[in-house]
């Protein structure tokens, strides 16, 4: 059973299971991760099979979860902690930014903190407040953290393996609205490096760069554009810290146009950094400024407005047209 079609949530579940099996130091921690298997069932069945001492239901306190995970890592464990929803990571922000991110440097390299923080993120599921946000830039700005987000089940599986094996803290953003999307997952494939972008679709006229939930949208955009005779390249960035600028640059040197798409607000979102750096690297190659499609500078809106708030086919196509019009 080396390859199987499975949903993204199931792929993470299988990856966690494999990690628990292979390394006795791996722990799962979080609110409701045990019997319930998490509100999205990502940890389904793990406590049953690995016991309460490896799959730990914690008190309702995110700072406590990350803070004790740090202590467990100091003792030699490799905790994988779940934050139940994007909007609930902030009580843990202090522990993540001032402790998790900096302890390796503080110790001049003597301490390693192999902690993975799993955060289901993004919108599109019709949820109430604080359940649909995309705060990745708030972590990527902070040195000492690595930030990744898979777009499909296969990457979800392998990137989780790599995140757990990493000796650095990894913030692993799970595209919750893609949890139920299925894809072929080979449990024997040799994975790409964790922080390497992938050309998800080749094209010549313009590059669409995205990660997590927006990669699927970019595929749809490229397909729609193809019908109009435009050839778009889709880059799946996979990592937001570091960002694989070499791959973006290579693509842009070919297509000469770049549109970045993310759900997070555009203002100071990861697209800003990509635009700034790629413009610097490709100043004479770019035929148009790097354009960005993302959320607005507003709190994530109530469910009945999220369609208008989130990047969609038309908005990305609009940006593509604007770029091509230069």
């Amino acid at each position: 059973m080396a390859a199987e079609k499975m949903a993204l949530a199931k792929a993470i579940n299988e990856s966690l299971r494999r990690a628990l099996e292979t390394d006795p130091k791996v722990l799962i921690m979080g609110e409701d991760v045990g019997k319930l298997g998490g509100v999205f069932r990502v940890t389904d069945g793990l406590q049953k099979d690995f016991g309460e001492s490896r799959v730990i239901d914690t008190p309702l306190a995110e700072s406590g979860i990350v803070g004790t995970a740090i202590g467990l890592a100091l003792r030699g464990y490799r905790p994988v902690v779940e934050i139940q929803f994007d909007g609930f990571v902030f009580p843990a922000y202090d522990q993540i930014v001032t402790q998790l991110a900096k302890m390796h440097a503080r110790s001049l390299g003597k301490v390693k903190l192999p902690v993975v923080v799993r955060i289901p993120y993004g919108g599109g599921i019709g949820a109430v407040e604080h359940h649909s946000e995309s705060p990745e830039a708030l972590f990527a700005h902070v040195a000492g953290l690595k930030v990744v987000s898979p777009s499909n089940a296969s990457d979800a599986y392998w990137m989780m393996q790599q995140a757990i094996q990493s000796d650095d803290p990894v913030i692993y953003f799970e595209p919750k609205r893609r949890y139920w999307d299925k894809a072929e997952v080979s449990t024997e494939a040799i994975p790409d490096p964790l922080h390497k972008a992938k050309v998800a679709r080749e094209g010549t006229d313009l590059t669409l760069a995205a990660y997590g939930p927006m990669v699927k949208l970019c595929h749809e955009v490229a397909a729609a554009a193809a019908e109009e005779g435009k050839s778009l390249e889709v880059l799946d960035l996979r990592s937001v810290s570091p960002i694989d600028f070499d791959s973006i640059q290579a693509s842009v040197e070919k297509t000469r146009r770049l549109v970045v798409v993310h759900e997070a607000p555009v203002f100071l979102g990861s697209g800003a950094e990509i635009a700034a750096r790629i413009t610097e690297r490709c100043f004479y190659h770019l035929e148009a400024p790097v354009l960005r499609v993302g959320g607005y500078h507003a709190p994530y809106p109530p469910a009945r407005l999220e369609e208008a708030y989130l990047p969609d086919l038309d908005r990305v196509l609009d940006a593509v047209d604007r770029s091509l019009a230069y």
Partner: protein
Amino acid sequence: MTVESTAAHTPRRSAGSKAGATGAKSKRSTGANARKSADPELVQLLTPEGKRVKNAEYDKYVAGITSEELRGLYRDMVLTRRFDAEATALQRQGELGLWASLLGQEAAQIGSGRALNDDDYVFPTYREHGVAWCRGVDPTNLLGMFRGVNNGGWDPNSNNFHLYTIVIGSQTLHATGYAMGIAKDGADSAVIAYFGDGASSQGDVAESFTFSAVYNAPVVFFCQNNQWAISEPTEKQTRVPLYQRAQGFGFPGVRVDGNDVLACLAVTKWALERARGGEGPTLVEAFTYRMGAHTTSDDPTRYRGDEERLAWEAKDPILRLRRYLEAANHADEGFFAELEAESETLGKRVREAVRAMPDPDHYAIFENVYADGHALVDEERAQFAAYQASFADVEGV
């Protein structure tokens, strides 16, 4: 439909307000250690069978309660449960995206809610539909966020009932700050902050205990221990009864039978009186049970069995008061029949109001981000308008 109209018969100014509201002070003013609590003592005034039991300390807070007031409490609980059931049904029908039911917690919420004066202030979680009812908040207002048309949106000052707070524990600090403000103003009102057993683990709740104790703020911390935080039983949050938490911060804590509306009324009145009397914060732990799922998204069969629910059903807060009302002749058949009809009317009204609730205009995204405006929001709104207009052009062609 407004609550006011449906709730008109009920004394809003605080049930049992004629009860002896003095005299308790001398006994209580020893402060932090007044309430020694090696063993959990559950304050109970009505047994599950509806028998009124004596309580030397708290009887006085409901001593003068009238039949009408008792019926009012019953009516509040029945209508709240009915509203709650309607909302659950509306979620199943797709009219709401989510619902957090208060089923089982009616006594805790109505008892505490009816202990309040109009000028007291409430900081709820996301489940205080019964308290909202007592405050006269239009239930339709509560449904907006669950339908996804807004994130709350009511004016907290209309009924001194703050917005629902979803981030667990945050509102306890807002409540404390508000209470500090009351003290600064020299006002004699009080604040009540609701939170759950799960919330008790959050750092913010501990900090609110510290701030309120240090500033002696007039706030009642009302913890509904409904035994569960989604799938986690209370043992995952504490190894001793929660009401004991207060003592280490220097104020009293008390555990009350959260399914006994009279006891909740009495204990909350006592705590509010302490607050108003300048004795600072109190923690009330209402020992109750979440009879339904955490929310409509939850599946409790994954983590708890039926026996527990059955045991708690026997302690049902509404049934218990009904037995008492009937046994003590506080209400006749006509009352119950009329209430049943009123209940139906309420359900129908809520249903209709929700179905009639319009989707917000897309431009609402850009509204109320700032009170004084912000150039970036203006720019994005203009871009959005231009983008929308581009479709109009296309459609116009």
